[in-house]
């Protein structure tokens, strides 16, 4: 049963400055959503709150499996993941970075190795498995972040500006990875980008944020 996410009237302020002003949306399972909008419109904040990485000031984030509401606990957090614009690379090898999410779940060694290698191959980093992750290029680092998320097979994958600060070649590679991911049945992907063209290329459903609210919603 795929996860559904319902965000209701989410508000958030930083230092008295409102960033989100009653932002609501219902995300259905198995769909790729792209949130777009100008810088400062609240896309990333909304994503972090939906991914349970940040607490909202007002409103509710609720997850449902079928009709049953999921408690906001570690079990739920382990069914979703967010790849941040700054990937946050661990100072170890590429392999150990990608295996991290599996290791903290206590995954058995054989399965951990297999899933890690699959994720690395999916993003084209399998030949760099033993390289120190901090020596990767910025484009490769973004792909590492995606591989790290893929290894844990999340039901909802949040990607915050997945191609920010990346060259054209790596942007195309990353878009290709996301397009292949979309073909995997049942996974929900929620992406933020300020690139309207990218939003059109990747979205099943496009949301436009302005002034801390979702103002437009379009099916592709």
């Amino acid at each position, binding site marked *: 049963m795929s996860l559904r996410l319902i965000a209701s009237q989410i508000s958030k302020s930083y230092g008295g400055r409102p960033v989100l002003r009653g932002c609501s949306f219902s995300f259905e399972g198995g769909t790729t959503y792209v949130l777009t909008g100008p810088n400062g419109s609240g896309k990333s904040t909304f994503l972090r709150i939906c*991914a349970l*990485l940040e607490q909202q000031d007002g409103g509710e984030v609720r997850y449902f499996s079928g009709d049953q509401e999921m408690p906001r606990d*570690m079990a739920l*957090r*382990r069914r979703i*993941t*967010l*790849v*941040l614009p*700054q*990937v*946050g*690379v*661990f*100072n170890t090898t590429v392999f150990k970075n990608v295996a*991290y*999410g599996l290791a*903290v*779940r206590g995954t058995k060694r054989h399965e951990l190795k297999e899933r890690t290698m699959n994720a690395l191959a999916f993003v084209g980093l399998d030949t760099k498995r033993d390289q120190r992750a*901090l020596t990767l290029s910025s484009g490769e680092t973004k792909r590492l*972040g995606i591989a*790290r*998320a893929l290894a*844990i097979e999340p039901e909802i994958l949040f990607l915050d500006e997945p191609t920010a600060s990346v060259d054209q070649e790596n942007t195309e590679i990353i878009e290709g990875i996301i397009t292949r991911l979309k073909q995997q049945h049942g996974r929900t992907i929620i992406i933020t980008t300020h690139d309207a063209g990218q939003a059109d290329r990747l979205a099943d459903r496009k949301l436009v944020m302005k002034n801390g609210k979702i103002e437009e919603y379009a099916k592709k």
Partner: protein
Amino acid sequence: MDSITQGFIKAFGLIVHLDAELIGIILLTFEVSGVALLLSVIGGVPAGAATGLARFPGRGFVISVMNTLTGLPPVVVGLFVYLLLSRSGPLGFMGLLYTPSAMVIAQTVLALPIVAALCHSAVVAVDQAVRQAAVSLGATPFQTIITIIREARYGILSAVIAAFGRVMAEVGAILIVGGNIAGSTRVMTTTIALETDKGNFELALALGTILLALSFAINAVLHIVQRRGGVHA
């Protein structure tokens, strides 16, 4: 000039022939400094990690105190530990004054704040994105703390090495609380001070050479650790 040359030749002879007195002093130095370092690590690493990771009332004050204590003058520490352990002091009943234990206490007081403060800096320096990545990938709060400490490992190791350098080179505090008793509390630095006073330069030079070599080795290891951690000194 001749006496210095002669001193070096005799010192070299003591080192090559593994002079018993020399070896005894070196072993005691390592024993006292090693135990003090161990205690400093046991107390300092958790203290530094806690102030780096946790948010609690008075945290800023604790960090300020910790940083201030890194610059404690050794003779002042020696004086306070002496007063604590002296027969009329609050811990006088333990009979620790002029024993290696008193030297360990004094060295620990000097080294623990260094370990704690440098560990704090190392933990705080870990990129916030690393912490968020750990949480986002499903780490529990405890696993997240372990991950951050592991990311700070090179900085923590640097802290330990820096503290080791400090305790090995220490003289003022341990001279006061140890009394520099031959065969009991006489370590490398206190021996150098005593033998220089007496004009016996051979042993002083031999120990000085070993201490310099150790200091060089410690700095070389520190440099390697910093390079491995991506911190170019």
